[in-house]
């Protein structure tokens, strides 16, 4: 390759990178705040008490973005879900977050038993009845280190200096606590957290019990649509919402 052609290629690559960076939402856009309403209800009643426990907690409608194709070989995906409603209630030592969004299909399954069931308790091997489907899921992400560092981490699962915690819920597998230090590093911690989910009239309502988070903590939300074969970074995501 001649020097000139190499130069042109490098320039094109540079412009492409700049364009990509420009598309990345700013870490903490002004006005993207989320009010946590103090609630007299217990975390348990917020989780399991139904809609009546949430009447005093205002909802904020947030925009959901569809991730662009991550790989050249990705199948295209249309934007079927454009918004989600978030409610945040602050109760004794906990932050309870409710995320609801419209989804025409309920993609879930009952998976039993747990993978580590002792052999003697089994009558026969449980068989999968599908291998080509994906389940609806949702997640709340926030910085693993709270405190003075006000800058929100990268939306792509933070980075080595700014690790994130991800409270992930899956329609078939339930809640699981994950942690990440950048794209591709998401790891199941093996811990779970209290969560509740309901699907009614074409709408998912998922409630997460998080630890107490101080005002100023940024939070981001994600939704996976199983019928669109969402998994991995193929999903809907919000920009950072700063907790008030």
């Amino acid at each position, binding site marked *: 390759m001649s020097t000139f052609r190499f130069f042109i290629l490098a320039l094109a690559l540079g412009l492409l990178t700049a364009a990509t960076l420009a598309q990345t939402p700013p870490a903490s856009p002004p006005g993207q705040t989320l009010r946590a309403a103090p609630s007299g209800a217990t975390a348990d009643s917020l989780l399991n008490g139904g809609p009546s426990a949430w009447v005093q907690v205002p909802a904020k409608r947030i925009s959901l973005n569809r991730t662009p194709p*991550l*790989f*050249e*070989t990705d199948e295209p995906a249309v934007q079927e879900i454009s918004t989600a409603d978030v409610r945040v209630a602050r109760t004794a030592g906990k932050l309870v977050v409710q995320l609801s969004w419209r989804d025409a299909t309920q993609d879930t*399954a009952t*998976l039993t*038993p747990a*993978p580590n*069931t002792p052999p003697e308790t*089994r009558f*026969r*091997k*449980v*068989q*999968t*009845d*599908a*291998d*080509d489907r994906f389940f609806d899921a949702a997640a709340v992400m926030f910085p693993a280190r709270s405190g003075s560092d006000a800058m929100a981490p990268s939306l792509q699962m933070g980075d080595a200096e700014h690790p994130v915690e991800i409270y992930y819920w899956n329609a078939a*597998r339930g809640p699981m606590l994950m942690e990440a230090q950048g794209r*591709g590093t*998401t790891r199941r911690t093996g811990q779970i957290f209290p969560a509740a989910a309901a699907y009614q009239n074409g709408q998912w309502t998922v409630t997460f019990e998080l630890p107490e988070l101080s005002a100023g903590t940024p939070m981001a939300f994600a939704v996976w649509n199983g019928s669109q074969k969402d*998994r*991995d*970074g193929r999903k809907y995501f919000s920009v950072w919402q700063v907790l008030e």
Partner: protein
Amino acid sequence: MSKHQYAMVMDLNKCLGCQTCTIACKKLWTDRDGTGYMYWNNVETRPGLGYPRQWDRIGGGWKDGMLQPSPLPTMEDYGYPWDYNYEQRLYEGSRKPVMPSPAPTSGVNWDEDVGSMNGDENYFFYVPRICNHCTYPACLEACPRKAIYKREEDGIVVIDQDRCQGYRYCIKACPYKKIYFNEVTGKSEKCIFCYPRLEKGMVNACAAQCPGRLRFVGLLDDPESPVHKLVLKYRIALPLFPEKGTQPNVFYVPPFNPPKRENYGKSILEDPRLPLDYLIYLFGPDVKDVIVRLEAELSRAQNGGRSELLQLLIGRDAQTRYHVRPQLVQIQG
């Protein structure tokens, strides 16, 4: 590039389709929850549907340096595994015969021995399949989690079950559809070339149990190994679908089948019972040269000469068929 590469050669002329390898593998590795439909080793009748059905036509592999992911095979393509109502018949007083449930519509080895017709003569043969532990694994490239790796010490391709998140990009990328998703664990699994056995100096379970003695195992880069001799020295073993671009490390001695009824004494290529086009479809255009070489060896032996190659292919004892060299393979880390 790995330092060494374990490889397997299967002589399709010796395969009797008994599925002993399949059962050996299943009892050893996939007798767990969520693995009912998983056959890390399966034996399929060719021509035929294969498992999952039509896997050879779905897609996957490489083209011009780009991954060619296919759609995911559906459970219908694998066939829903069924169970039998033994309890009702044996313990609950049912007078009805034992029946499978759900009603089988497809499954592993569904079209066993159906084969195809060439003129008025039927033909078929068996192709045992495991993960090909490719030199350029498409599954490895496709995994965004970097959960799949090729072992530096012996070239075996494995899925790290801690890193795997069950995204199934690997299944879409594998042109041989030899990775299976376990819905119970939410992770993908595949043949591990029995590396825990190899590390102890024992050969793969599928090979050890094979009554037809058709499997040869060793390091491709070890000149003393039978696989080196069959693939590189005598050049009579070929990979399946070489055009998929992954460079498999499982090779096949193409099947000869007897000649047509009226053709005894003629070259198999003159009027083959197995249509050459079909063998070329499976093994690529080199299959013709391989058949010429094999016929020459056969002819020499039939005329009283000695053929070292045929002695090797007969493979009377385990020392001939297997060169497992744990002392050569230094486990990394």
